[in-house]
């Protein structure tokens, strides 16, 4: 079915970040063709993909999801969530599905549901590596079987095609795994016949909702797509989009504001015209879609060990004046003591961050000379097992407290610890381990769709 105009709502920057109910109501009153929200990001780091946990709270996800699904069912329009549960892995998708089922029971809602999976099979990926259909990005080395084997979880970042397949199959609620952020909106716009350039651009604007508006807050954004332009307008009457706020959204979390690499093409915004349409709405035209060979970006996380930390502060000017030497002495002393437990140096590493010196920028810190009157010392041990990490950090704490230095006046423990216990177990820690794209046979191959009637 082709439309002359497609209207879509994005509820918030991330599912679970919240939005005013009144804004969603205002959006539904304008008879949109879908409502959606992006659920994920790699920004909070590798822990979530690795551990299978969400980075937003269960209660906050349920609150947002409940308003969205009830609104969509009442308005008889599709509701789509991209990158469920933050990282889009199977546990993340299942968490959102569980919450959706609870909401459906509590409110007696009925609809056709599509779950789009994005976790990837390791044997299949290895086959793709063998047939030279996996390519490294940036400075990454070619993908190896060992990296695939070590990954706790690997997801592919889907484009709009699996969403379109689910829409074609009549799904009203779509919960999807890892997706490129614009995918839900790009899919809906193309489903109703809009050109790829305008469709992708609308997704780019809507994925972070009112990040494209002023003043910035988590709120609902309306996007209208035609064959000529994309219009965006915040649904909260206290907010507005300006040409500048919309242009700023083009800069958001991308490597380039004009070249946006997506599955199957590049959204080129270099010739865009951004014009105020009303005091609160902005129209953008002139975007281009440049088709490219179809590839899917992979994300993976592997467990690198177990972490324990301790935090201490010093207010001792004598110690602060020689902090680098002091930390070196502490490290050497810890290594000697830990070796006495028959723990191999290969089984652990420690990291010391000095807040007040270069704790935030480390080697990039341009200011080498300035020191504060107090320093925070965050010591971390990352080890093969939690027991080893705990043993190392315990030795570290005692050694920080009692290590001598020239000119020491405070002859007792010379460190301020804010907590008891002062050693904190952090559990398993992960690192992102894939920076590659894969060529699928077709855009839907890697993303099985499971339909059910709720």
């Amino acid at each position, binding site marked *: 079915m082709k439309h002359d105009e497609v209207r879509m709502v994005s509820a918030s920057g991330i599912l679970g970040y919240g939005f005013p109910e009144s804004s969603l109501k205002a959006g539904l009153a304008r008879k949109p063709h879908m409502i959606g929200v992006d659920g994920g990001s790699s920004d909070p780091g590798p822990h979530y993909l690795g551990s299978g946990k969400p980075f937003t709270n269960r209660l906050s996800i349920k609150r947002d999801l409940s308003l969205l699904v009830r609104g969509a069912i009442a308005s008889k329009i599709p509701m789509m969530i991209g990158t469920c549960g933050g990282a889009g892995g199977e546990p993340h998708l299942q968490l959102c599905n569980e919450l959706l089922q609870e909401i459906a029971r509590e409110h007696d809602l009925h609809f056709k549901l599509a779950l789009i999976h994005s976790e990837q099979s390791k044997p299949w990926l290895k086959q793709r590596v063998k047939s030279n259909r996996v390519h490294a990005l940036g400075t990454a080395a070619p993908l190896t079987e060992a990296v695939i084997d070590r990954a706790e979880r690997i997801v592919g970042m889907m484009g709009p095609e699996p969403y379109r397949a689910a829409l074609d199959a009549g799904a009203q609620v779509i919960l999807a795994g890892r997706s490129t952020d614009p995918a839900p909106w790009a899919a809906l716009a193309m489903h109703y016949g809009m050109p790829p350039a305008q469709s992708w651009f609308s997704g780019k604007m809507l994925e972070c909702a009112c990040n494209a508006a002023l003043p910035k807050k988590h709120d609902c954004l309306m996007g209208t797509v035609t064959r000529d332009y994309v219009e965006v307008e915040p649904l909260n009457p206290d907010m507005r989009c300006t040409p500048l706020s919309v242009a700023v959204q083009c800069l958001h979390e991308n490597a380039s504001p004009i070249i946006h690499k997506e599955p199957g093409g590049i959204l080129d915004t270099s010739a865009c015209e951004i014009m105020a349409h009303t005091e609160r709405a902005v129209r953008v035209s002139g975007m281009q879609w440049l088709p490219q060979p179809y590839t899917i970006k992979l994300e993976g996380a592997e467990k690198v060990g177990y972490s324990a930390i301790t935090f201490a502060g010093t207010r001792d000017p004598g110690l602060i004046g020689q902090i680098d030497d002091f930390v070196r002495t502490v490290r050497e002393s810890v290594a000697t003591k830990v070796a006495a437990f028959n723990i191999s140096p290969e089984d652990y590493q420690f990291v010391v961050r000095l807040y007040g010196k270069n704790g935030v920028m480390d080697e*990039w810190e341009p200011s080498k000379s300035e020191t504060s009157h107090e320093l925070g010392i965050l010591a971390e041990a990352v080890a093969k097992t939690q027991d080893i990490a705990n043993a190392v950090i315990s030795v570290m704490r005692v050694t920080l407290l009692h290590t001598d230095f020239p000119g020491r006046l405070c002859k007792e423990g010379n460190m301020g610890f804010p907590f008891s216990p002062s050693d904190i177990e952090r559990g398993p820690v992960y690192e992102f381990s894939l920076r590659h794209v894969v060529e699928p046979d077709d855009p839907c191959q890697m993303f099985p769709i499971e339909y059910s009637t709720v």
Partner: protein
Amino acid sequence: MPKLKDIAKACKSKNAGPYELTLDIMFEDAATFDKVRKTGVICPELIAKLYRVPVASVVFTEFPPAHAYKATIERRIVSGAVGDTDVYGAQQHAPLLDVEIPI
């Protein structure tokens, strides 16, 4: 001579995915942006020097619609990896703040 922190409307850093860091510098209006642009101070070489990365690795874009510059570089360490100090890459903009702009 004014420093960037005196004349920019926004100056920030953020992850562009877990492997890259992107720096955005924005000005209030086209006039200020044009004045800054004419000085030629903000360029890939400046970013390379401040962050000690090869100049060829800096993805640098002028973006007049937002009165902005954008520079993207490899992160010093992958987001959240052992030894990282800034998972979101949100506090790596400080070296830009004191850059002197002769306008």
